[in-house]
């Protein structure tokens, strides 16, 4: 057995979002859903500032706004608000998300969701409060809430269910590829529509395509007797090859995708040449950090630190095997990371959207980690996009005149910053 990688755990004083943000992609993924957050002005302000930038159409999410008078009520009354939602929209399912304030005043969510549910319109409780959940983590809890709505498949139904929300383009790629390899597909969890959730039973093979859906995978293994494949996640030629080979194995097929992998590497050689020897620092929170680190190292880059909110050692076991010698940090302290970044001067920092521009201001090339959560980087067709995400910033910054990084160009933008004396006269 290879030596277990050391994981350093710090105090979590870092920049991140809470679990509510996953609403941003899940409401678009599950097209007949509505996300109702029981929360405060803070939750509403969070959602409009993090998601509002992207959304011009009618959002299928809203906050049941708790005001001062609502704090003393033992159980909030949501029926009228749900009726109001149903006047505007016709959802097939309502996800009721918790947030910090109702957690603190101990709202009993399970019972609340049950009392609001109707046979034709289930209301499903999703714990998502920032007291316990970060950013992409709550997708896992949304998927868990959907499990009872996946029909039970008979034991002889031996097909794969891809686990984790991806857009249609990626989904189609996975369907085409499975078809090529002769692997029968039962569907995706989540499906695009609430009533189309895939059947899952003891014959089902679960293939997780997102690295943050551990609890759902586990529950499907325990409750439905499904087999969960343990592979690298399908990012990059190395991960994609391992993913499909392991998936084929679960169907009794021994396939060798070595040539396919080699060809994929060959196609991105221009990028990997650039990445060779580059020093990359992960200070982000998308829960994709481990597979991305593994891919970057396969590209020839050196990963100085890979920090992530938390690491599920069992679910990410295959990835961890590949990360020997990498500094892995859970719950990073951002202040310490800043000092390390200043000292190490990495060629590229992948950071949270909250801290990227300030990092660029400190003279490093930094990139929004959040973008990885929204780009089509999975599977064979995602390889170019994935590698390009790492090289694009490096290339672009190279093109820029170094004079542009003189502090004179940021003078006066930020009132709290120290007054800057320009170096250029």
């Amino acid at each position, binding site marked *: 057995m290879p030596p277990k990688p050391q994981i350093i755990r710090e*105090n*979590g*004083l870092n*920049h*991140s*979002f*809470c679990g509510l943000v996953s609403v941003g992609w899940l409401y678009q993924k599950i097209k007949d859903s509505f996300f109702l957050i029981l929360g*405060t*002005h*803070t*939750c*509403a*302000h*969070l959602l*409009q*500032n*993090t998601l*509002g*930038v992207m959304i*011009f159409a009618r959002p299928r999410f*809203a*906050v*049941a*706004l*708790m005001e*001062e008078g*609502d*704090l003393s009520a033992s159980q909030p009354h949501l029926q009228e*608000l749900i009726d109001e*939602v149903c006047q505007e929209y016709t959802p097939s399912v309502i996800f009721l998300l918790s947030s*910090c*304030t109702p*957690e*603190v*005043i101990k709202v009993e969510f399970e019972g609340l969701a049950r009392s609001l549910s109707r046979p034709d319109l289930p209301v499903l409780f999703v714990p998502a*409060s*920032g*007291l316990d959940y*970060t950013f992409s983590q709550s997708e896992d809890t949304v998927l868990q809430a959907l499990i009872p709505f996946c029909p039970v498949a008979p034991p002889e139904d031996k097909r794969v269910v891809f686990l984790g929300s991806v857009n249609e*383009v990626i989904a*189609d790629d996975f369907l085409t*590829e499975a078809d090529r390899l002769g692997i029968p597909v039962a569907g995706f969890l989540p499906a695009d529509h609430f009533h189309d959730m895939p059947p899952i039973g003891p014959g089902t093979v679960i293939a997780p395509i997102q690295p943050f859906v551990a609890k759902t995978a586990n529950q499907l293994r325990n409750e439905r007797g499904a087999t969960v494949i343990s592979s690298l996640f399908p990012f990059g030629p190395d991960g994609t090859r391992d993913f499909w080979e392991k998936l084929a194995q679960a169907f009794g097929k021994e396939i060798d995708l070595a040539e396919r992998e080699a060809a994929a590497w060959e196609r991105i050689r221009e990028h990997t040449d650039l990445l060779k020897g580059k020093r990359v620092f992960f200070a982000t929170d998308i829960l994709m950090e481990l597979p991305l680190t593994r891919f970057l190292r396969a590209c020839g880059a050196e990963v100085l630190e890979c920090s992530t909110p938390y690491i599920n050692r069992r679910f990410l076991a295959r990835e961890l095997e590949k990360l020997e010698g990498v500094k892995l940090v859970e719950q990073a302290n951002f202040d310490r990371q800043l000092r390390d970044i200043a000292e190490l001067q990495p060629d590229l920092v992948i950071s949270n*959207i*909250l801290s*990227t*521009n*300030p990092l660029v*201001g400190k003279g490093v090339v930094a990139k929004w980690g959040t973008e990885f959560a929204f780009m089509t980087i999975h599977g064979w*067709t995602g*390889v*170019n*996009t994935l590698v*390009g995400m790492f090289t694009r910033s490096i290339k672009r910054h190279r093109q820029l005149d170094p004079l542009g990084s003189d502090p004179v160009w*940021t003078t006066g*933008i*930020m*009132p*709290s*910053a*120290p007054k800057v004396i320009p170096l250029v006269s």
Partner: protein
Amino acid sequence: MRLAYWMYEGTAHYGIARLINSLRGVHAVFHAPQGDDYIHGIFAMLERAPDFPPVTTSVVDGRDLAQGTIRLPDTLRQIEASYKPELIVVTPSCSTILLQENLEVTAMVSGIDCEVIVYEANPYRMQEHLAADNLFTVLVKRYAEATLITERPSVNIIGPASLGFHARHDLVSLRRMLNTLGVQVNVVAPWGASLDDLRRLPAAWVNVAPYRELGQKAAVHLEERFGTLLLRDTPIGVQPTLRWLNQLIEMLNTAAVQHDKNVEITLPPLTAFSLDGMSAPSMVPWFSRTADMDSFSGKTAFMFGDATHVVGVTKFLADELGMPICGAGTYLRHEADWVREQLDGYVDDLLVTDEFQTVARRIEELRPEVVCGTQMERHTARKLDLNCMVIAPPTHIENHLLSYRPFLGFDGADVIADEVSTTATLGMEKHLIDLFGDAGLEAPVHSTNGHTASAPTNGVAAAVADAPPVAAPPASSGPLAADAPVQWDADAERLLKKIPFFVRAKARANVEKYAREHGHSLITADILNTAREHIGG
């Protein structure tokens, strides 16, 4: 309890962060769950902050609550060590305030040398503007010291703050006018002020505090405590700017007499206020008399926003551009009386609400030619196919442009007038488009198999419909000529449709190029996906 889709005002902690990110040497600490940290993103994204705002979330998580641990003292020590601020302001969040912890005691336990204030803004009673304004007043009361006034005439500019609406630009406009008058700026606060700057606020001859939302309470305190004259009018529009300049000159001359300074300020020729010092300081008075603006006659405007901008811009549109105002409103309930009084004679029935659906319904009833509102009204206007310009926060990144776009002063009058005329003119072009069809916006696209189809919605379907029955794909046998016809089967077309429309044409061309190079004359789903592997995305 109510259903909220969008909020006009930010939270109390956002208001505090805006204030603290305006000051130098002060740090805010939020005793809050991780999620409250999102406000960093607003500074990083909208203001493109090149450094970290001095705002730290001292994380409280579920385990801390269960175990009764509190990380605040550690956080305070870390902040003192890393940033060495002169003052730390500690605030609970909407969730931690319910825990009723004694943060004063907790802060004391940290044993740090730095001064600490616990500012318990109740987020259920106070939102962005009140929280920022009240905290600013607290700080001004705490630090401003009696001092001799400056030798030369000077003013404090009170009110501009981080993420204030066009605040950085307004500040430039005000500085330019003061410069022209020969008046020096003693302190700008909160924008860029240190605690020392707050200490020497009373050295100014006059305070100008143009924003209702921030700074006027502190300026009133300075007037009561130190006798500094206060000019709180807002110079939005040409005539108000002229009045503002005259009032300011009068106050400065009064102060000169009071303090026995032998100075008399007079208004220079107005051309001195222009960019080149020799032209009209604003184009608005002439512009609004031109025939161009005549075509605007009768175009109605609906106004909605905070207090300062709704009042200022409503008067500007009515008095200086001659536009009928069909309605106005504000989301700042605590300013409603002031706004109503200010807009007496302009608007009969002021709408006071912080529910955007209510505003949307009013706009739908009125269907004005121009909506002047916030980002929410921009959503509404888009939905209703109306023209909208943003005159008040909350804003979108589209409102945070690089170029100089003040709302105050002569320069600001030109900016607002431009915004009105381009917003509404585009509207007229839009009507022409409605009248005469697509006006070239949706020109037909030639698909390479020789069929002409109108893009984007019908193109694929038309191309498929017109294509001859599909035979089995010919075996690939070397590359095809660059102009060889290539066809798509139905599956491949279906996949192509899922690619966003704005890159679809490019994707189509790339896939066809790939197919030709590899000798395929029929594109199947399989070939499409293989091609995408090769060309990415």
